[in-house]
């Protein structure tokens, strides 16, 4: 059997045997990325809806900036946030560097523009006429917004998946902000880099398989919600 097959077998062996370190790493990956995605939804959905519905000078520039932000290189985000969080840096007093919170902060910066941009696109594709009709029927602005977001929920679930997918898979920011510390900030991607560096290829393949597996499970659950009504 080839190296890859061994790695896949190892992945299932580690998960089933309840290897506590692998479970802890997997759990932390989920926590950090889910936390960052959740925060980015809190910020990105209102911001995206606002950008989609309002007209103001400089809006085109703001939209371009958000769209550029959707492709922020994680390693650049990692570097900038690290410098902010350094003991010598402006936010050094928080003593957040090399903690899971720092990783959440970095991943939030990566995911927020993705969620904002996709929410913007989702809300904008709801026809204008529909919005005007609601207002004409006497809906308040808040009611109108709620209905719009409901109408746009399917593409917005795509925003959740894209945001989560973007952060669970990134390694640059997590490595710099977390420091890949055993038992504290080691996540699946940074552990994969480390084990590859150590020459433990079967273990790094196993970690990759686990990463793919949980990414699949999360997306499968979200897709299930998204597609349920269509069935």
């Amino acid at each position, binding site marked *: 059997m080839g190296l890859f097959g061994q790695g896949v077998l190892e992945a299932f062996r580690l998960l089933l045997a309840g290897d506590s370190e692998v479970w802890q790493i997997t759990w*932390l990956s*989920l*926590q*950090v990325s*889910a*936390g960052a*995605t*959740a*925060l980015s*939804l*809190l910020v990105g959905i209102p911001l995206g809806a606002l950008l989609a519905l309002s007209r103001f000078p400089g809006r085109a520039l703001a939209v371009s900036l958000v769209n550029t932000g959707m492709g922020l290189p994680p390693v650049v985000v990692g570097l900038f946030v690290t410098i902010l969080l*350094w*003991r*010598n840096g402006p936010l*050094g007093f928080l*003593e957040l*560097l*090399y903690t*899971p*919170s720092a990783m*959440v902060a970095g991943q939030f910066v990566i995911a927020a523009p993705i969620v904002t941009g996709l929410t913007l696109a989702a809300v904008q594709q709801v026809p204008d006429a529909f919005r005007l009709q609601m207002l004409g029927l006497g809906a308040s602005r808040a009611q109108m917004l*709620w209905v719009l*977001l*409901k109408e746009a*929920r399917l593409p*917005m*679930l795509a925003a*959740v998946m894209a945001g989560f997918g973007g952060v669970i898979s990134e390694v640059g920011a997590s490595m710099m902000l977390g*420091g*890949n*510390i*055993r038992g*504290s900030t080691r996540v699946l991607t940074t552990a994969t880099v*480390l084990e*590859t*560096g*150590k*020459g433990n*290829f079967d273990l790094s393949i196993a970690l990759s398989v686990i990463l793919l597996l949980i990414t699949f499970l999360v997306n499968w659950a979200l897709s299930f*919600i998204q597609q349920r009504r269509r069935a």
Partner: protein
Amino acid sequence: MARLAVLLWLALAGLLPSMTGPAVAKSNIVIVSTTTSTQDSGLLDVLVPMFEKQTGLTVKTISVGTGQALALAARGEADVTLAHAPGLEKKYVDEGKMSNRRLVMYNDFIVIGPPDDPARIKGLPRALDAFKRIAESQSRFVSRGDKSGTHTLELALWKQAGIEPKGAWYIESGQGMGQTLGIANDRRAYALTDRATFLAFQKRVDLPILVEKDRPLLNIYSVMEVNPANGPRVNARGGKAFADFMLAPETQAVIKSFGVDKYGQALFVPVAGKKDEDL
């Protein structure tokens, strides 16, 4: 939409608080900046829990190239540094950024290369001569190119040989030792590597050892404390505790036997109390 809100709430309420973990008083955290080889070899995975158990302190190991490990320490972003580039270390000590440099252990570097040995360096007693022959024959050589301790030594050897490594034969990987060995293996090239990483990669790398046991190839690890003046929040007490721990007899005993079970030979030789000149 409601479902989305529930998901959100769950993620925030359920996940975030559990992540902060047990509260650790800030002065109880020691940040150790160190080279990748101490982590890749697995040595710190053994030593750090020992230290934490003995002292009740929590260690954060930042494992990067020696150049970065020292640069971080000089900015006060670490409390203690374990590195392996004596020349560079002495420069930081002279500048007052680091203090109390003490030798911890050594192992050695080796020159590996393709079995057909196009530069004919096999068995040369001096690494310098080997480097000269590699450059003269323009045989492929893979360099770390990352300011690590290994890279620093490699550059020093080229300089002593009076060679400026340049050209198609000189490949800079910009990566860790493991990846660099992989590239050397793939391109059938020469490389300078520490013995510990080479042993760890024996399954994947079939390049033989061609030059070894020359004095300049000694790979000496030292521990240094960070000057608290480098920045705010340097934990000088914690840094000193870790440095002292690395030199304690029971730690040195663990270093002495580390790797025997896995590789059939020890990866490091402990040398607490010795000076550079003694080796």
